[in-house]
């Protein structure tokens, strides 16, 4: 497994020749908007 996406969308890639095997963050996921609509809130 040389490349994988974290549960929050960040992309990690294996660092060549790393010992122990280590992964670097190559692409960070865009943050979702912090303004969330409250459930049941009045429009």
């Amino acid at each position, binding site marked *: 497994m040389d490349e994988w996406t974290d549960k929050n969308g960040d992309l990690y890639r294996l660092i060549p020749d790393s010992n122990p095997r*280590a992964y670097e963050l190559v692409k960070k996921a865009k943050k979702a908007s912090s303004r969330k609509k409250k459930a049941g809130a009045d429009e």
Partner: protein
Amino acid sequence: MPQNRKIQNFVENKFMADDAVGAAELVDDAVGNAALGASQPKNVKFTYAFSSDGGAVSSITLGTLPDKAIVTGGHAEVEAAVTSSGSATVALGLVANTDAFVAATAKGSLTLNTVLATSNDLPLKMSGDTPVIATIATGALTAGKINLFVEYYEGA
């Protein structure tokens, strides 16, 4: 009837009395996860050590949890304080779920002898052999050692 004392001393399991093997007959640490029944909790220890793993901003593989393991609990122990010239954080988790056990935790909370709950995303079932990783973010570490103890059952 002639007797052979050496053969007399050789007793097969089926002739042994219940409870014949007690603590005195077992070598310390002789029983590992493989010898335990599937319904018994297993325990594995993973270690992040700056001295052997380095402290670069990255996700470092500490070991692997077996396929179908159902992780129910555990804890992390800071054996040597985590230090950094920046505002580093450390998370403990799995490939594709880097904070499954411990969410990103600032170095100031990773002082000597701190014990952390590792229940962030638990319980979890492994699909395939799954690498356990420590994720260093924000700044590189300059020291630190963390032991991660994971308790799991063999799933079906």
